[in-house]
Every structure is written in C-alpha cells, then in structure tokens.
C-alpha cells in the first residue's frame, strides 16, 4: 500500500549558536526547533500555528534544507533528504517549494515578472525558450494576472499581486508540496481572502500538499485540514482542525483560541490571559516549556517534558494534564 504520508519529520532539532568570546567561541544556543515529530499526508493542508519566535518559520525552512538541521531526519516520499548530496537535493527541490511572507523582499527588483517566474526553468535548464514562454504565460493567467504583466517589474505591482507572482514562481516546476510561510500576513484583510481562495483552488487543480504556517488562527482554521500548535520549538497539540478549535486539550491552545475575537455574540469565550512573557528560546524552561505560564501546572511539569499522546482519535497532545471538557 502506498504510504499516505508525503513528509515525515522525525525528532527535528535546529539550534543556533549565539554570542562569541574573544576568539569567537559561541556562548549559548538558540533552540529554535527542539524535537519536532510530524507527518504530513499527501493532498492535505497542515496548518502550523504559534506566536512569533516559536520556531515555525525555522521549521519550514529546515524542511526545505534552507537551514541545515542540527539533528533529526526528514523523510520526503519515504527517503531521508538530509542524507542527499547537493546534486540529488537539487533534483528534489523541484518537488518542494516555498512562498514567503514579505511580498516586497521576495521578488528581485531588477528582474521582470517573466524572468522571476521562469527562474525554475532556467535553473534546471529544461524546456526550449518557446515552451518556457508558453508555460509562464499559462501560469500567470492561472494565478489571476494578465499576460502583459510578464514584462513588467515588481515595483509596479501591489502586495497581493506580488504574492500571486511568488505563487506562480513556486508552482512552475509542478511541486508536490508547498511550504506557505505566512503568505497572507502582510496583506490587507480583503486581499487575504483572495489569495487564500487562490491557494485553495490551486491545491485542487494541481493536487498539492500544503504546510501552512501562520500566527493568525482564523486564517489557519479556514484553510487547514489538520492543525499543529507550536510553542518554543515543540509541538504541543495536533489534530483535525475543527476538533482542535472546538475542544482544545492543551492549555496553550486554549489560551490562543480565547484570544481570537469571535464574530458571533454568543461565541465569545472568556479571554485567558497568560502570565509572563514568552521565555527566550536561548534558555527554555526545564520540563514542559510552557509550565511557567500555565495556570494548571504541577510539580512534574517543571521536571519532565511531556510526550505527545493520542487523546481521542488522532488528537495528539503533549501535556501531563490535558484539559477535560469541564476545566
């Protein structure tokens, strides 16, 4: 039977060395990603949420090997890509692409739209010039732009249009998976909806798998099949979208959800305000990373890190005292 998982991440860690003494020896480490286990099924949209600094962007970049992980394994279509040579990696890159958050820095200001979008063809040296032009033209129209845009420069476009260009660039090589790193966070709310709808439509059209990274819970809820919640380098909760939002098991998830303004008058929850600031990833707290801010913490939480356990039909939580419906 074919493995339904396109991407399997095993115990991924990414530590950055910081600081330097007189001779440049690092004094401390930023534990951006601290042991993540995750599987992404073919064809699904996995949402990855968390506050700024929780490591989700670093995680996304590690999957593509834009950052080299410190530890762990990444299996793409069953093979560990961390063991690949540069040459082999280059071939695999055609299957996994990325769309960035900032529409203003993700396009080279000195190149035309056509040159930017067709970069994939240029790098892999495929297709004749005429074939390239044809495909670029098709892709431009697919993302909702016009053919006459091909010879224009990025500064002539708005944020939303630029993101469309980024998407076109990512799709040109027909990848199997796309990491979307906060693709709509820099856009106006009205434009966000447009781009999100485009992404959904493209997923169906091209049979894509998405890892959708965001700090905006409403957006994630709208577009994801499953959601993973990340805190200080670790996944704390993972389940189907509605299950997570209707009935979170982790105190952090509960607090996150409570902070989202609900449109319906009766849907407004009691807002949970967490104590303290997010601790720095340089010196994460021992045991459960969340314990200093958790109102339910006990002794064991300060000593032992909890592991992910299935609470209820593939609803996984890493907590010693997962929430029950009454409390």
């Amino acid at each position, binding site marked *: 039977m074919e493995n339904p998982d396109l991407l399997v991440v095993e115990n991924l860690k990414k530590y950055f060395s910081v600081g330097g003494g007189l001779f440049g020896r690092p004094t401390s480490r930023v534990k951006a990603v601290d042991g993540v286990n995750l599987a992404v099924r073919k064809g699904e949209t996995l949402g990855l949420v968390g506050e700024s600094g929780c490591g989700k962007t670093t995680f996304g970049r590690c999957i593509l090997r*834009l950052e080299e992980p410190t530890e762990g394994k990444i299996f793409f279509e069953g093979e560990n890509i961390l063991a690949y040579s540069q040459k082999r990696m*280059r071939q695999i890159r055609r299957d996994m692409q990325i769309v960035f*958050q*900032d529409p203003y*820095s*993700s*396009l080279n200001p000195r190149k035309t739209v056509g040159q*930017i979008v067709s*970069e994939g063809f240029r790098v892999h040296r495929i297709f004749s010039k005429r074939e390239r032009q044809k495909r670029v033209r098709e892709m431009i129209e697919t993302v909702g732009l016009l053919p006459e845009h091909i010879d224009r420069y*990025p500064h002539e476009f708005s944020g939303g249009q630029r993101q469309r260009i980024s998407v076109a660039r990512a799709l040109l090589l027909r990848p199997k998976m796309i990491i979307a790193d906060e693709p709509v966070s820099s856009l106006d709310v009205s434009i966000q909806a447009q781009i999100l709808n485009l992404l959904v439509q493209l997923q169906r059209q091209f049979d894509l798998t998405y890892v959708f990274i965001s700090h905006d819970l409403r957006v994630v809820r709208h577009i994801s099949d499953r959601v993973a919640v990340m805190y200080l380098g670790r996944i704390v909760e993972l389940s189907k979208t509605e299950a997570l939002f209707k009935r979170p098991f982790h105190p952090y998830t509960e607090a996150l959800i409570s902070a989202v303004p609900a449109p319906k008058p009766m849907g407004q929850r009691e807002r949970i305000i967490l104590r303290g600031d997010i601790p720095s990833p340089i010196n994460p707290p021992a045991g459960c990373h969340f314990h200093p801010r958790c109102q339910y913490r006990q002794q064991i939480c300060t000593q032992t890190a909890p592991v992910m356990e299935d609470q209820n039909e593939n609803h996984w939580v890493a907590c010693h005292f997962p929430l029950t419906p009454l409390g």
Partner: protein
Amino acid sequence: MDKTWNRSSKIPLSMRISLVIITVLGLVALFGPLLPLPDPYAQNIMKALKLPSTDHWLGTDQLGRDLLSRIVAGSRFSLLIGFGAVLVGMAIGLPFGMLAGFYGRGLDRIFSWVIDILLAFPGIILALAIVAVTGPGIGNLIFAVGLRTIPVFARVSRAETLSLRQRDFVEAARALGCRPYEIMYWHILPNIVGPLMIVASLQTATAILIGATLSFLGVGVSPEVPEWGSMLNAGRPYMMRHPHLVLVPGCTLMIAMMALNIVGDYLRDRLDPRAIAARG
C-alpha cells in the same frame, strides 16, 4: 524598496553646468588629436614662455609648447588615470567583496585582514610605495592609484552582498535549486551595480586627484607627458614671472574636480537610500 528616479524634480543649475563640463572634457579627451591644434610635444625655444595670443590661445610653456594643446592632451591622461584606477579597483574589489559577503566566516576574515593591510597606509603612502618600486609611467601610476580604490569597492560590495543575501528572493532562488555562483551572478550582482556606480563616480575624481598629486611630486608620469599635475610641477620655477604656466593647468584641474564632485554628490543624494535618510 527600490530606487526610482524622481521624475518631477528639477536638476539644479550647478548640476547642469557640471554635466556640460564633464561632457566637454570627455569629448576633448576622445577627439583631442583630431582638433586643429599644434603638437603638444613640439618644442620651439624661440616661442617659449609667451602669454596667450591669437597664435597660442593659452600661451606657451618654457619649452615653447602650446599650452592649449597640452591641456587638451592632458585631459586624456587624467581621464585615463581616473577610469583606469576605478576599473582596477572594481575588477578586484567587486568580486573579492562579493565573495566575502556571500560566503562569510573564513573567507570574510581573510578579506578583512587584507583590507586592513591595504588601509593601514595613510593617504598616498601606499601609492608612493608602489611607484617607488615600479618607477614612473602611466601604467604604474594607474596600478598604484587603483590599489587604493580596491578597499573602497570591496567594502561596498561586501556590505551590499551581506544585506542582499538575507532577502527572501535569494532564499527563493536557493529553494529552486540555484547554484551559488548563479545566485551571485543573476541575483546579487544586478542589485549591487547601482550603489557601485555612485562610488565609482566619486572615486574617479579622487583617482584623478591622486594621479595629479603624484605627478606633481615628480613620481607619477614621465616628465615630458602633458599631465596637468606634471605641468604644474614643471611650471614652478617660472611661475613668478610667468604665472599662466601654473594658472592654466591648475584652474583646469580645479574645474574638472568640482564638476565631478558635484555630479557625484548629486547622484549619491538622489540614489543612495542611506544618504537620503541622512539628509533628514
């Protein structure tokens, strides 16, 4: 965050005059030999040290050579030194700085080390050392002056590369599988060119100045070459009674420098985002 020409601005008068001056200079340098002027090297003792007249519009020097044609010929040498030195600086400084900024760490440390050595010599000491070794001559002069411009270009290239390397479009290129040299050539280089041109224009003026200074000190071009600084040096013994010998090349040099500086400053104020921020 890209730089666009502010089309609605007026170009100030000083800038316009400067551009005219530079264009004239360039044309004169290019087409000098074609002009109906006397040979700048032809000596005629009978006509030495004459004041400006209809025969010789700017007079003659101590060996009877026509000053106007020597000034015109001198413009070629000045521009040659200026552009030559800048070319040397860019040819070596640009790749060096870009590689250091791109790869960082070890390479960067070697880079800083070499640049520090080059910059450890104040003012024209380095250029003097080089010409002391190689002897006079325009090629040697271009090399000596060029050596001083290398650190400038290297530093700018490195700084620009460092900041560009962080930009998302470079990451996107990596994600597509772009090889490092491709990234440098296709993505980084086109974006460095702008700031580099600004540096180049200001450095040209400096290079011409240093070349003239070295020639004035007698260690630049060979003595009979009609370079402006050299002409000033040659005219020194006679200047008390025949001031036009030094006034003519001196004023020419000063005007050329002013024009180049005005243009360079203008370009920098208009195009460099950091200068725009500093204007306040």
